[in-house]
């Protein structure tokens, strides 16, 4: 019988970890644990205490994101996916714009020609930036600077240590 293969201590450990609902118990041990519980009638107090905690956890409503979140995600996707996911020069979500972007925002806040104007200004502003960079105290590097320094290997210039999906070997 299944219950003979599972000790009373193991049943206690299963309930303590997974709670009172047998559906959450490890599948391979479920039948044995249930059979032992039914036969012995032990662990009734433990089951009740865990069932109360289960009810508290189960009573938590599902948090809802703002209505804008999915729209933001689609907007991010349209930039990254359509323009090419391998391009590393785009700005990450929630990242603050670089100094050039902030400058352009300030100057062309009410003008719709910002992209064109930004391109036209790029050469003289960059030249000015090189001169200033040599003469002033350095500021935190922006995305453009990092791109220039490290190229398109995004992993080198983010502060994140997130995993690469191709590194996963757990499901071979």
């Amino acid at each position, binding site marked *: 019988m299944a219950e003979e293969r599972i000790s009373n201590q193991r049943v206690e450990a299963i309930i303590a*970890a997974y709670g009172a609902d047998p559906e959450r118990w490890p599948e391979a041990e479920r039948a044995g644990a249930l059979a032992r519980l039914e036969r012995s009638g032990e662990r009734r107090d433990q089951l009740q205490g865990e069932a109360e905690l289960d009810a*508290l956890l189960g009573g938590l409503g*599902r948090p809802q994101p703002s209505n804008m*979140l999915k729209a933001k995600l689609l907007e991010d996707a349209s930039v990254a996916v359509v323009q090419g996911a391998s391009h590393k020069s785009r700005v990450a979500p929630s990242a603050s714009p670089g100094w050039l972007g902030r400058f352009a925002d300030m100057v062309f806040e009410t003008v719709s020609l910002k992209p064109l104007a930004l391109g036209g200004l790029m050469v003289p502003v960059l030249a000015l930036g090189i001169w200033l960079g040599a003469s002033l105290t350095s500021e935190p590097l922006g995305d453009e600077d990092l791109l220039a320094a490290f190229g398109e290997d995004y992993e080198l210039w983010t502060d994140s240590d997130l*995993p690469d999906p191709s590194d996963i070997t*757990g*499901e071979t």
Partner: protein
Amino acid sequence: MRSLDVEPGENESSVVRSQPVDCDAALVLAVAGGDMTAAGELIARHSDRIFAIGFRMLGDQSLAEDLTQEVFFKVWENAGKWQPGRALFSTWLHRVTINLCYDHLRRRREVRLEDLPGSLQDRPDPGPGADEILAEKAMSTRVTAAILSLPERQRAAITLCHIEGFTNIETADILETTVEAVESLLTRGRRKLRELLQDEQHELSGGK
């Protein structure tokens, strides 16, 4: 540097069981090819859960939304490198989510029990005759606060296994550990929650 490389013997559970069908693999490949419809489908399938995990781990609506954006940015960024069959996309996605939560928590340090999230703390009064709703919300706030006070790995295990409904094996894969370690995290987490929520449990059982 956190890695997804699995240490020898650390993840036996995933080796012995059969490979489940990865319903997302085709979508990820389509995204790599620039398919916005596939991107929208991935968002529809996973964003609510990513947000919910972020909220349970970080205790803040705004941070959880930022986190969700960061997670999906990683998806778009890595879609081209995806190798179907090596891992379930969902496992990778939730692993990224948990790791980003750890990064946020490391920057912010532990949330103290009395430091409740504003979105839960400052509920507007829903009006007269709403005592039950208020009581329910107060209970939910206390349970949420108790979860937020757990050490981060216990919090992650409880959130994934007990709130989001992942199995112990899936939770172990996401947390890059063994089923036995998950069980230990759950046991310690639940023990701590029972200590913190004694009054609530008493209230729930009608004071018996």
